[in-house]
């Protein structure tokens, strides 16, 4: 019990004094997850919108696949990426294993289906609402997509934030492909796991504070966005 109290106090000091280790790990976490977010969004937002408004042959199948991929356990994603990137794997020559790049790849695979699926859902509703009007106004395909993306921008942002939330709190996959190497691939979640194992509660808790602050910040943003959405502001 005492350990924990001391740990809390120490953690507090680490945070308020901007401890270099804590900063480095937090920044790396942000860097990895934000990179993953940008790449995943670039794939998932257009994909989800496309699936919502275009009918094509394998549309149902693609959507089912997306939903199935959303349920992939991160650890398994980590394992697969590990195998692909390991020295004897097909992409072994790239030497990416145990680098932040490998972690970004794993996170992209984990959050792309999630973002695409939320985007698809929101865009399908918006398209159902707008369909008749946009057809009647004789809009081109490109004008339709632009209109939907612009008027659905809040939903798209919500989808991205949800993806970011999942990425920043994820531990299984990046532990495997990143290796949790000090000064190289250690991020908030993997560091917490390690420090907890070592019994260094101060650093673990300090890292936990930062992670919680990030998670709460994201949730508040999502909540705020969906509220302005309902009330039709912005």
């Amino acid at each position, binding site marked *: 019990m005492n350990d924990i109290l001391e740990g809390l106090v120490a953690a507090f000091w680490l945070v308020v004094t901007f401890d270099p280790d804590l900063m480095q790990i937090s920044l790396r976490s942000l860097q990895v997850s934000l990179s993953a977010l940008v790449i995943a969004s670039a794939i998932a937002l257009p994909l989800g919108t496309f699936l919502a408004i275009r009918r094509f042959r394998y549309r149902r199948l693609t959507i089912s696949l997306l939903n199935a991929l959303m349920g992939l356990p991160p650890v398994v994603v980590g394992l697969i990426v590990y195998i692909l990137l390991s020295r004897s794997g097909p992409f072994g020559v790239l030497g990416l294993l145990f680098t932040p790049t490998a972690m970004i790849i794993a996170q992209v695979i984990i959050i792309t289906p999630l973002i695409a699926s939320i985007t698809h859902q929101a865009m399908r509703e918006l398209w159902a609402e707008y369909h008749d009007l946009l057809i009647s106004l004789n809009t081109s395909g490109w004008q339709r997509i632009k209109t939907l993306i612009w008027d*659905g921008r809040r939903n798209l942002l919500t989808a991205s934030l949800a993806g970011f939330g999942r990425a920043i709190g994820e531990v299984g996959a990046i532990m495997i492909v990143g290796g949790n190497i000090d000064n190289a691939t250690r991020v908030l979640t993997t560091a917490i796991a390690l420090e907890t194992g070592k019994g260094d509660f101060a650093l673990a808790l300090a890292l936990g504070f930062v992670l919680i602050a990030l998670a709460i910040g994201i949730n508040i943003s999502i909540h705020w966005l969906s509220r302005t959405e309902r009330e039709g502001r912005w």
Partner: protein
Amino acid sequence: MVSVMLPLTLKDVSVRRRGKRLLGPVNLTLNPEGLTMIVGPNGSGKTTLLRVMHGVERLSEGSATWAVPEEEARHRQSYVFQTPIMLRRTVADNLRYPLQLTAKPRAEIEELVHHWLKRIGLDARMGLQATRLSGGEKQKLALARALIRKPDVLFLDEPCANLDGASTRDIETILRSALLEKTRIIMTTHDLGQARRLAGDALFMLHGVVHERGPASDFFSAPQTAELQAFFRGDIIA
């Protein structure tokens, strides 16, 4: 004016969905001028007919042809839906939207937008989200948005449903001045008073077909079929 779009000719048009015939067979020619009023009980096919004319309903049989190529005709008509569709944008942006699709100069767009905002009495609400307007205000906005591109042909699906007397009069005033500017109007209504006030000619839809048709003078004062007589009496038609 460029080439004249009308007449519009519907030839043996049928619309079937899930094995059920919703409309047809309909044979019909719409002349170049005036206001055609479509009346009939709920579910008789008024909306379907209007959508067919506008070209947004897939035909199962037959054809609908304008006097100009289809692509050109599509650009010169507007449609106001039975339930107004508001873009999730401000009132003013809803009016701007159809103009932004064409390459109009900005100053011209703003002038038109302000003109129409005033005309429908929503200039004080121009910054409000359109989805928050009242039902009647939405209907007025949808009408203004349809007219802002100065269409040659305007389709209206019950534009005054749920409106009070004053709003109905506002809309009828706007429609009359559009008629004076030679806009061809085809509309539906359940308000027989309105039908009498506005119609140049009229169609009575029943069970998916045009049951009776004629110039307004004959249509309202001397209906030919027993069904239309019953409809005017207010009887329930099976």
